[in-house]
């Protein structure tokens, strides 16, 4: 069976990290399996972890009055789920559910934050991965705000 180090080292998101840094992260990680329909977290709840998805898909959703639960994004293999653990007040902005059986590596948010505070090189490496991720998702959101497929205005 792969060790936590092996699982993390295989994640594209962490490609380029030194073995020592992967080791440090491994001490705050564990493998997780979510069955179809499992709720990973709930909007407003304490954001104290994040996941690197290995297999399966997870949806982010929110409750919209009059429309019920609306899915805002789907994340699949190689995606990172969760960044609210990085930013105070450490609360989830959306809810997340597994669409199908999903395998992931779960990392402890406060533990990784402490690691980053102690080892600024690791902190820099992680931030230089999270910032493009956040920017990319923001750009995708902006693109969807354009509502490109809507018909012309009457």
């Amino acid at each position, binding site marked *: 069976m792969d060790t936590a180090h092996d699982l993390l080292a295989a994640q594209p998101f962490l490609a380029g990290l030194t073995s020592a840094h992967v080791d440090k992260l491994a001490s705050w990680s564990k493998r997780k399996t979510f069955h179809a329909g499992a709720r990973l977290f709930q909007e407003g709840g304490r954001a104290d972890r994040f996941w690197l998805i290995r297999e399966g898909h997870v*949806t982010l959703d929110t409750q919209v009055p009059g429309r019920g639960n609306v899915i805002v994004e789907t994340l699949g293999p190689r995606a990172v789920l969760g960044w609210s653990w990085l930013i105070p007040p450490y609360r989830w902005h959306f809810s997340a559910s597994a669409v199908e059986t999903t395998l992931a590596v779960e990392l402890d948010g406060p533990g990784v934050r402490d690691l980053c505070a102690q080892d600024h090189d690791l902190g820099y490496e992680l931030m230089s991965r999270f910032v493009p991720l956040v920017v990319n998702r923001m750009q995708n959101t902006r693109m969807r705000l354009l509502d490109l497929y809507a018909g012309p205005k009457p």
Partner: protein
Amino acid sequence: MTTSRYRVRERTIETADTVTLVLTPLDEPIADPLPGQFTMLYAFGVGEVPISVSGRTGAGDIVHTLRCVGAVTKALSTAQCGTTLGLRGPYGTEWGMPDGGDLIIMAGGIGLAPLRPVIRQAIEQRGRYGSVSVLIGARTPGDLLYVGEHDVWRDADIDVRVTVDQAATGWTGHVGVVTTVLDGVAADPAHSTAFLCGPEVMMRFAARALIDRGMAPDAIRVSLERNMRCGVGLCGHCQLGPVLLCRDGPVIGYDRAAPLLDIKEM
């Protein structure tokens, strides 16, 4: 420039505002359209619009999928079986299938219609190509076109990926912009040809994403749309910089299209 009469033989409602019409010739049929080409479709007494060919069935039959967005397309999209319409063409450039390599076909909304002939041709000649991926984006699940064909394409060894911008829970497919389903596509960027059709902004983002993955701009083909009137490069209504899209397009390489798309309000 002569209009031939065609009769609506079949009418399929695809979505709330989109129908597919199978048109059978009453006069001498127009020449066989190539994938990517369009015809000028005429609702008698209302007007004429350019519509991309989305398929062929039988001898001389032409298939058009069109969305109701104005007076003419409203008349066309509500035309019932037996209605006579006018057709001239085919006009414009074709997608141009490569001899081999991998294919990436990216469609947004109604943009899947002009790409369907490419998908069908890829299936007919499946052995010529490596991976063939079809990435489809739409506003909601209810706006997806040709849903019944997706599994047929998958059965033909096509990697079909569907994503929507908005969905209620219960939708088990992907939610996100069409570029997000590019991850994991098997195509080798150095030996791929991409075909893009959809809203211009979507094509721009998609082309950039493909270039970021290592594709050459001239290996990316886009289908552009402007106000086409004559269809034969005479009236100038569809001019985009030095290009008359009805004659030099609608399909052009992204190496030519990119600088033109950066120009505002041409």
